[in-house]
């Protein structure tokens, strides 16, 4: 049994890194807009299908399709927030969160209406896994890891060194002070939505690159994304990364004693433990 651990750790590392991308989007939106935006699920799906369309219909390579996934999901995020979630915000975080759940169901069904329910695969060559002893890893998994790391690095650099990034951190930290300084909260909100949902779109596509996509792609992962954000501390971007790696590795290690079908129980248990024992999460609530 312990001989399985290296393979599980490798799987967990890859899964956790890919999970970190939508988790960062989710937690960033929470930091700035102060509500859990569950439409991350349907935007992951929208991103995955946008990438699918350019990859299969236009023949673009994977990295270009990922960029399209980011842009389309981000744009959709801005539009959806402006039309539907923004009017709900004055009513409070709970109402907006419930509205987000309803919206994600509608968006998922729009995708289903256009593309149907069947599984679709990206147009990529089937390559055999690389093996070292008992451990195997797929070339696509390695690529996903690289894309995820690049996306996260871009986010960190943006937040640390650009004017807009610093403005976002200011609004997340203290909206009143930020508006006193002349920072336009609406503009920051739009940018956060664009970036956050764009990251969700990348996440959705990365999930599907190795396997296949269908309208439920985002929904399947939303619990793990939420768990990752909660474990790391809602609103903390480094926390989202730590949380995602924790959840990813924990889900894989749970296979030592649980059947694969129960894997999502790990997400539930993690949320339960964190909210009971340390509600602030591992890194506390603080945008980077």
């Amino acid at each position, binding site marked *: 049994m312990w001989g399985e651990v290296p393979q599980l750790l490798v*799987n967990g590392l890859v899964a956790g890194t890919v999970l970190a991308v939508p988790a960062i989007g989710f937690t960033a939106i929470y930091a700035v807009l102060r509500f859990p935006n569950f439409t991350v699920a349907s935007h992951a799906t929208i991103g995955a299908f946008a990438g699918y369309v350019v990859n299969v219909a236009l023949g673009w390579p994977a990295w270009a399709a990922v960029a399209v996934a980011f842009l389309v999901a981000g744009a959709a995020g801005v539009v959806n927030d402006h039309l539907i979630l923004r009017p709900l915000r004055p009513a409070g975080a709970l109402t907006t969160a419930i509205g987000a759940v309803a919206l994600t169901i509608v968006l998922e069904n729009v995708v289903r209406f256009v593309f149907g329910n069947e*599984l679709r695969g990206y147009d990529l060559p089937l390559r055999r896994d690389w093996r070292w002893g008992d451990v195997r890893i797929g070339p696509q998994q390695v690529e996903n890891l690289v894309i995820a790391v690049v996306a996260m690095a871009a986010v960190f650099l943006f937040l640390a060194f650009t004017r807009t990034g610093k403005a976002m951190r200011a609004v997340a930290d203290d909206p009143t002070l930020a508006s006193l300084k002349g920072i336009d909260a609406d503009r920051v909100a739009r940018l956060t939505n664009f970036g956050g949902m764009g990251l969700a779109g990348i996440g959705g596509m990365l999930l599907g690159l190795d*396997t296949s996509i269908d309208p439920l792609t985002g929904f399947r992962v939303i619990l793990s994304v939420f768990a990752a954000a909660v474990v790391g501390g809602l609103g903390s971007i480094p926390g989202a990364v730590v949380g995602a790696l924790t959840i990813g590795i924990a889900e894989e290690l749970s296979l030592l004693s649980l059947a694969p079908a129960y894997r999502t129980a790990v997400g539930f248990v993690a949320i339960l433990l964190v909210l009971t024992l340390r509600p602030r999460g591992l890194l506390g609530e603080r945008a980077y």
Partner: protein
Amino acid sequence: MSHHGRRLSRRALLRAAGSTLALAALPRLAAAQGGPIKLGTLTPLTGAGGSYGPSMRKAMEFVAQEVNAAGGVLGRPIQLVSEDDQTNPEAAVRAARKLTDVDKVAAIMGTWASAVTTAVAPLCWESKTFLTTVSGSDTITQLPHQGYLIRTQPNTNLQIGKLAEFLLSIKSRRVFVLAAQTPFALPSQKRLQELLPKGGSELVGAVIYDKDKTTFRSEIDQALRTKPDMIYLNGYTPDCTILMKELFKAGYTGAKVAQGYAVNQKLLDSMPAEVSDGTYTATPSPAVDSAGYKRLAAFLGSGDLDPYSCQCHDQISLVALAIAKAKGEATGTAIRDHVRRIAQGAGVKVDNAVEGLKLLAQGKEINFEGASGPCDFTDIGDILDCKIRFDQAQGAKFKFVKMI
């Protein structure tokens, strides 16, 4: 102001309710005694079984057309009401509800996935609607259906028995089962567990997975750890597609076997030949030499019919003949009580409904033998025997191996 004249008096309300109920009962009475015979088809037009649903429905439309052209069942035309079960139990229950409550059909025919049939069966026996299915899970005929259910597909017990015989004949020694969560997953596993050791082979492990996932990495790791020489993919087309690709990526070089409804030509066309090469498939074989099969093949325009369309052709024929035997009473109960009288026994052998109806009108006894097989049923609705055909995928085409 007096509101006496305006409001509905209790007596008037009761009178109105009573006559509405009587009116609602009229269609069912009419259906039972005169007017067109309404029969429902509930096949997977979309979903995992979507490759078969449309042709299953066409096979039933074929029989209905032929019967209506020859004068109908005792003068009454068959009217088919078709719904899509989407290979999904929730959608199927909604569709079945509509068929039984709104259309008030005498029979529902053609449910395909075992999970769908298991969900729809209680609705049928409770509303006394006859259900004919092509699902295979043993658990289905073991339900308390009071006779309102028959199936033309060999049950899991029979199918896995023949599969075990095949695996032993090709000397598979270490068999691992990767099964989707379905009613037949556990019975199949248990039957293999029981039969393989008798031939010197072993079931080295089994995993039941949730078929709605897009990756099965961990399940495959579990399988490969047991070093099998044969993996039985007991799922449906979408999940088997993913499993076969992942087994290829993982470098698995052993043999694979799957059911023919899962690993079919559509699956072979969706992946490079090297991924599917060598996979064995098991398919219940229709009665290819029968006149019924040949006539259906001519209508559907294909030389090689899937077993489900053949079964649906037989199912609607059996229902029509049972109604005729019941002197035109088009209810589920009448079909239940008369179906075995025209399906088996010492009567004149017929292979199509039109001829059967003619002979019944002359007062003769008949024994319907269909395009899918002899159509002889046990008390709980299983068929007695069936031949299973084994093929192998070679260069993205199927080659016949043997018939058991």
